[in-house]
């Protein structure tokens, strides 16, 4: 055990997080789906090992720096991993592995969609890993763009005009967001003459405000913050289930991660209370409006997609809460924790929704009665994921909610408490629309197919992780503290 531990800590895992997925993507593209399927599991497992190793390493040795090819900044690409990055990487690897297992069963070997799924997914994972590891603004732009393109490609996997339209809408939004971000980058470079995140700091002036506005806006579009969420439901709801899981759980988190990084490393000196409150307000709007729309949905996957819109709102509550002490650290932790637990829970939920669709042959919530008997583990998985999304104990979502509430109380911003309470109840309201189907009798006209065990199994594992995040918060938070902007406040 200790050998394994020592070995995990000793290896520099950063290249292993980038190389294999990208190689897998290329090979899969060149050699076709069969080989891609064959390679998928080893690569994904390797990814998880690497991410775990990196997390351990960061936890023990502190933030890691890796100069790619031996070239340092500014010309070379320098990679950097602190606790936050390690956590996001680990989440990506874990969800990636689960989605990979799921997809092996979901896309049969001769499925046309599989041909493109494997390279695009591997590419997406590689791009995300790169994004989490990047330490300068322009690299971040490139990875953001790569990730976006791969994601759009995945959305376009589904055939039909609707899927294409969704993909295009998504693409346009992603491009717009990227360009707004890029303009910000250009302004930063013009102002500061450097792009390395480590050394940068904005002063409070008009230009800074412009930069903050541009970059935040761009990233908010990519994160689908209310009211810029228009592209998300069709894209996430319409894509094949494993794609939805990747997009909803991971992709929006990447842009959020970036925003987090910028806001608390680059922007912090220049921001003011109204701006932070404004972001929080948008988050609150997302929670309420997204939940409300989720309540109106008839299709299962659309409901889950709108739930993502709502859950993104919690992420943005972090900004008003964490920008100003007291309670900043709790808010920061809570926000990140919410990103993590939402990732696992939402991935599980989308995957299991796919299994349900497979079993029932349709996605109409009202006619899903009887699923409880046909797909008990599936329903249970959905329930576990729901627990986390509702922020009920013992789950990661609960820890996140706890920390955010703690921050809100500590800083006296009670209005966010109300928002979170109402949001939690609304999420319960729409999620139980699905859960109650478990107790209804099977409709007469429904015939169930038995989905492959892997579909439900992988989703179940993810939901267990979402639950486990609530029980293992201590270690997770310790990792998160490494290199966090609030370390001075930790005891």
């Amino acid at each position, binding site marked *: 055990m200790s050998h394994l531990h020592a070995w995990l800590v000793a290896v520099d895992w950063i290249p292993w997080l980038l190389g294999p997925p990208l190689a897998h993507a290329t090979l899969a593209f060149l050699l076709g789906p069969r080989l891609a399927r064959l390679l998928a599991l080893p690569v994904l497992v390797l990814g998880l090992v690497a991410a775990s190793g990196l997390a351990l390493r960061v936890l023990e040795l502190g933030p890691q720096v890796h100069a790619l090819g031996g070239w340092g900044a*500014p*010309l070379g690409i320098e990679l950097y991993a602190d606790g936050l990055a390690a956590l996001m990487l680990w989440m990506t690897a874990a969800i990636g592995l689960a989605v990979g297992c799921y997809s092996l069963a979901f896309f049969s070997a001769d499925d046309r969609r599989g041909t493109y799924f494997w390279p695009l997914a591997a590419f997406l994972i590689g791009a995300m890993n790169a994004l989490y590891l990047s330490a300068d603004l*322009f690299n971040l*732009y*490139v990875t953001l*763009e*790569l990730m976006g*393109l791969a994601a*759009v*490609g995945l959305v*376009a996997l589904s055939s*039909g*005009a*609707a899927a*294409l*339209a969704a*993909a*295009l*809408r998504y*693409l*346009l939004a992603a*491009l*717009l967001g990227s*360009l707004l971000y*890029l*303009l910000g*980058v*250009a*302004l930063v*470079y*013009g*102002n500061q*003459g450097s*792009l390395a995140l480590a050394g940068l700091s904005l002063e409070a002036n008009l230009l800074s405000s412009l930069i903050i506005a541009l970059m935040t806006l761009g990233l908010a579009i990519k994160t689908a913050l209310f009211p810029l969420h228009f592209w998300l439901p069709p894209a996430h709801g319409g894509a094949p289930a494993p794609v939805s899981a990747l997009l909803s759980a991971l992709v929006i988190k990447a842009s959020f991660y970036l925003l987090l990084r910028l806001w608390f490393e680059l922007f912090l000196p220049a921001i003011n209370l109204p701006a932070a409150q404004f972001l929080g307000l948008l988050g609150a709007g997302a929670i309420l409006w997204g939940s409300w729309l989720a309540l109106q949905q008839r299709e299962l996957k659309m409901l889950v997609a709108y739930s993502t819109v709502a859950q993104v709102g919690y992420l943005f509550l972090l900004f008003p809460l964490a920008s100003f002490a007291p309670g900043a650290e709790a808010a920061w932790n809570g926000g990140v924790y919410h990103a993590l637990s939402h990732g696992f829970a939402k991935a599980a939920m989308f995957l299991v929704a796919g299994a349900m669709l497979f079993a029932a042959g349709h996605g109409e919530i009202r006619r899903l009665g009887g699923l409880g008997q046909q797909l008990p583990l599936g329903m249970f998985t959905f329930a576990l994921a729901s627990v986390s999304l509702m922020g009920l104990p013992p789950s990661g979502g609960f820890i996140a909610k706890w920390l955010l509430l703690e921050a809100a109380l500590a800083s006296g911003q009670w209005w966010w408490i109300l928002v979170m309470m109402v949001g939690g109840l609304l999420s319960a309201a729409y999620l139980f629309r699905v859960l109650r189907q478990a107790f209804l009798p099977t409709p007469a006209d429904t015939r169930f197919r038995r989905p492959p065990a892997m579909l439900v199994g992988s989703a179940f594992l993810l939901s267990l992780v979402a639950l486990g995040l609530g029980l293992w918060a201590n270690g997770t938070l310790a990792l998160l503290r490494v290199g966090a902007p609030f370390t001075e406040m930790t005891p």
Partner: protein
Amino acid sequence: MTGGLFYAITGVLLFCLGLYGFIQHAHLLRRILAFNIMGSGCFLVLVGLAQRGGQVDPVPHALVLTGIVVAVSATAFALILMRQLYVESGHCTLPGEDEES
């Protein structure tokens, strides 16, 4: 006003022009073009602002090159999707957005 700043301001203007087009138009081709104009504006800003010190800064050049590659691939991807959409639905606009101008 130095040349650099001039370029930068032009870049900003281009960006705004592109943004206007991107939002205003419904036809996908126009929007893709608008996106390219925005991208060009960005690059101009990047290169222009970097010239403040008088001497040539190599970093933005590298960045812009990379950026162009990204933009080109994105454009290509967008065009393919648009074409496919036209094949499937017979429209070059997203559903719910009609061509007005």
